[in-house]
């Protein structure tokens, strides 16, 4: 459902993504791994239109993003963002809204869902991520793990066809990582399409159908997680996985 074709992205003169072509299928969980600075976040942000790119194209269903500024792609961009949700490393919960308010915000103001309906749905989603008891809490009153689970519920509230997650557990205290991964495993089982940037190799191995290794702005490995992790073809991958 998401097709990236010959994507190129530069920051100034530095090429950060070079000639990336890849397709993500519906219902599949893809883990994106690779060394720091490899371009993982940038790739995710391009798909969501938070970054513009310099060449190639990104297609989500029938919607196409092309190189150039956001204005040109405005229509496609808004439509794609409603179909593709994003979960950030730093959660980015709206700090002036409660957990419930965060989850309701977009359905009510973007989709025009009635507040009563949105509230019902938000409660159900918060229950699904195990936070029905924290609905009235403000972000600064919640732990990182709780906030990240609210952020996942917030993204799910838009019924996205795909979910982009950029290191959803990296900023968490170690004892909080599990609760977020549990939620993601559950989503994976339910068939939610996800593209997860992660350093949690066990999670990637257990929960994803496919693993990509991004290095120096290029995909150097693409296959089932066991294959990529146990029999990497690229020496860089071996170095990264510590199997030198």
């Amino acid at each position, binding site marked *: 459902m998401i097709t990236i074709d010959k994507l190129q992205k530069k920051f100034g003169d530095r090429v950060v993504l070079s000639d990336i072509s890849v397709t993500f299928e519906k219902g599949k969980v893809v883990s994106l791994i690779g060394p720091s600075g490899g371009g993982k976040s940038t790739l995710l942000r391009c798909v969501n239109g938070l970054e513009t790119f310099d060449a190639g194209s990104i297609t989500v269903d029938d919607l196409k993003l092309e190189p150039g500024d956001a204005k040109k792609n405005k229509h496609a961009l808004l439509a794609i963002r409603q179909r593709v949700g994003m979960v950030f490393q730093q959660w980015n919960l*709206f700090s002036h809204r409660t957990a419930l308010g965060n989850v309701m*915000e977009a359905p009510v103001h973007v989709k025009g869902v009635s507040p009563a309906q949105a509230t019902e749905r938000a409660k159900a989603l918060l229950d699904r991520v195990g936070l029905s008891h924290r609905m009235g809490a403000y972000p*600064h009153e919640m732990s990182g793990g709780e906030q990240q689970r609210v952020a996942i519920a917030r993204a799910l509230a838009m019924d996205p066809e795909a979910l982009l997650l950029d290191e959803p557990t990296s900023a968490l205290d170690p004892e909080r990582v599990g609760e977020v991964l549990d939620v993601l495993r559950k989503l994976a089982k339910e068939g939610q399409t996800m593209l997860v940037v992660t350093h949690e190799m066990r999670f990637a191995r257990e929960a994803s159908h496919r693993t990509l290794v991004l290095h120096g702005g290029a995909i150097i490995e693409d296959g089932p997680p066991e294959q990529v992790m146990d029999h990497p073809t690229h020496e860089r991958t071996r170095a990264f996985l510590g199997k030198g």
Partner: protein
Amino acid sequence: MGLAACMAVAAIAVQSCGGNGSGAPGRDAGAAAPSGARRPDGSLARVRAAGVLRWGGDVQGGAPYVYDDPDHPGQNKGFEVDLAIALARELGVRAEFVQNDWSALVPSLERNTFDVILNGFEVTRPRVGRVRFSPPYYVFAARLMARRDDARIRADVNSLRGMRIGTLTNSFSEEVLKGHAEIVGYEGTEEPYADCVAGRTDGVLLDDIIATIYGVPKPELRVVGDLADGFYAIAGRPADEDLGVALDAALARIIASGELERILKRENIYNDRQLGLRTWSADDQRRMLGLSPAAPGQTGALGGPPPGAAGVSSTAPHRMTLGQVWMFIQGAGITLLLSILAMGLAVPLGLALAVSRLYGPKFVARLADLYVEFYRGTPVLLQLYVLYYGLASIIRLDAVTAAVLGLGMNYAAYEAEVYRAGIQAVPKGQLEAALSLGMTTPLALRRVVLPQAFRLALPSVTNDFIALLKDSSLVSVITVVELTKRMTIVAVDTRSYVVPGLLCAFLYFAMSYPLSILAKRLEERLARS
């Protein structure tokens, strides 16, 4: 405790700028006192020793009083310059002009900035209580002007009831009008006539010299007639009786010799009214100063009935009446209302400017930049002036509207900066999260960024409101009578700044202190979250 300290500071400030009008010795203010019964006070000796008579005035008053000589830039000219030179010569010293804001001439005199005031300084009842007046050197008429097409106005003060008449604040003409018309007080001489032409007032009552220069040239206006005679005299400190007596004598010689007549004729302001100066008697002086009980049917030289109970010396400071206290509270109400309305304009306008600068198209952002730079880079006083007087021929705003617009548009520039800082303090991730959910940029700003930015900015906005509360006193230049203006008016009536000043300070404080507590609370709450 904070309140007590603040009031103490206010009291000191008021004392030092208002001077002490009641405790000074020599309170026989100006009436030709029997000099033999008095010990020399050294004031004349001091001037002689310094070899210079320093006289205060404001060149802004313009021709023919004291003004910049167009032929010799940097030099002063005017009939009072010539008079000062003649007076100094009679004392055997040099004359030295000291420039001083006209409205602060008395406090400056009391602070020894100069020896005498000599600048179209009219003899008025409140002034008699604070300075020592010489016999007059000029007799003027309080001249009434009105629009040519306005037949309602006659040369009779009783015909002015219910009409808005412009005049200079604290002037002789204002005293004449008191109790007879709705007085619109100005600080300058051009504005009252301009406002009458514009229809903001029904008439103008001012000295004939001023009327001739500023009113008569306006084709829309006509001279209605003269309502009363008034006097320009030399004003000195009551304590400087020696100097006063010497100047009185010098002036008498200058008048007797015909020199004053020549000086006045040079500026074309000599007329038959001046004939009485040659025969000026001690009785005339007493009558001018309003010290003798008025004869039946005679209103005295100062026009209007004398204030206060009969027999009370007009030099005694008056208590503030309950009515005046009430006027103060009304003044405070106007100050508060102006501030709230102006802030009500500044907040949304500032928000629009901040958003335009940060997210608008280049052209709009540039315009918003210009707006902010312009309004922050020029004095708000000037902006008020341009808005009210400068644009009067294009849009005729009433004074309160102009005040609200002027202050509001000025403060919008500051609010814009406050919001910009607030918006930039909202983490970038907030906007990205909103966009990633499919919000458009305007929606994301409205729902996510601005509410947070506003919360961050709220303490600064509250502080700006406190500043606005005080800045609103500037609108007195466009005839709005708010708290500070009320204070200066009452101070002149009561002859002392102490009580009105304290009351004024207290009222400002009573309005701003709760706000600053609020600002502190908001800051604390912000720091916690």
